[in-house]
């Protein structure tokens, strides 16, 4: 009975991820098919690598046979932001025993955002099901896209905006929950400046590094004052 309630909560929380993942993974599967790969190659990549933007970068990499060193460096640079995400949930995940490794593997931009919105009631279990559902959406989208992509004619252009909307909502929630607006404001300003300086594919990592440094400096001040 309790489990049912948890699953229901997790499903509701995962609906924005569903809209986004089904659509993006579908596009990914379709692009893999068009690049000439069998559906199971797309499936294996979605299953094991499981990281949105990087999987798209992998497509031209695979077709042009880039060196494995280039591949490794790109993976490092594109996905290091995940390290920052783990920092927030290190205590929550550690409590989860063996499931911890699954939670680490399935931590994405989107599940990170949703996990930030959960309250303490059964947080572990809800996080687990959000991760599980999100992964199912991603795999399902990939399979449909790579098997039958070109057969589906509906135009869903723009549906991925649901993720932008969710980020805005979480941002608003976090804003009202705290008086410490330094992290939010420095995030907006630094990300904007970094976007102007770096390419749109590369600005996230420098943004995260600079914001973290700023927060640390600001933290030092806080403790001195308090």
């Amino acid at each position, binding site marked *: 009975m309790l489990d049912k309630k948890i699953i229901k909560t997790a499903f509701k929380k995962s609906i924005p991820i569903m809209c986004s993942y089904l659509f993006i993974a579908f596009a990914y599967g379709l692009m893999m098919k068009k690049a000439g790969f069998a559906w199971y190659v797309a499936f294996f990549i979605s299953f094991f*690598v499981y990281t949105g933007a990087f999987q798209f970068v992998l497509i031209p990499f*695979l077709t042009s046979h880039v060196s494995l060193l280039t*591949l490794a460096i790109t993976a490092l640079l594109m996905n290091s932001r995940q390290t920052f995400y*783990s920092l927030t949930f290190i205590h929550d995940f550690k409590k989860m025993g063996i499931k911890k490794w699954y939670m680490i593997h399935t931590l994405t*931009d989107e599940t990170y955002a949703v996990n930030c919105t959960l309250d303490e009631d059964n947080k572990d279990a809800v996080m687990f099901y959000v991760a599980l559902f999100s992964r199912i959406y991603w795999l399902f989208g990939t399979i449909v896209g790579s098997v039958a992509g070109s057969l589906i004619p509906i135009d869903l252009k723009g549906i991925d*905006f649901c993720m932008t909307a969710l980020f805005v909502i979480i941002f608003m929630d*976090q804003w009202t929950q705290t008086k410490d607006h330094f992290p*939010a404001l420095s995030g907006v300003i630094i990300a904007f400046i970094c976007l102007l300086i770096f390419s749109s594919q590369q600005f996230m990592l420098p943004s995260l590094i600079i914001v973290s440094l700023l927060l640390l400096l600001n*933290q030092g001040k806080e403790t001195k004052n308090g």
Partner: protein
Amino acid sequence: MDRYIFLVIVISTIITFFLRAFPFLFFNEQRKMPAWLDRLGQRLPASIMAILIIYCLKDLKTSFLPLGIPSFIAIIVVVMTYHIKRNTLLSITLSTLTYMILLNLF
């Protein structure tokens, strides 16, 4: 599936998993996470959410018009409806529909 594809999958998987697991591998019961890093982890979500919003709008950098108008209006829809109703799914549905319709107009 040839050897190259196999290696690409293995290397990408290992690196991506390692990056996600890094703080967990580095800190354990013997080596506790220092308080300043713990505090950083607690304050980062607000910054990360801001960065993710900018990430979603990153393509406007190269072509603000006409792409910017649907995004701009749709974001106003989310902010307004969520401010009034505080209903996540309602705001997401309304703003995404607005965005999709506007995208077809512009």
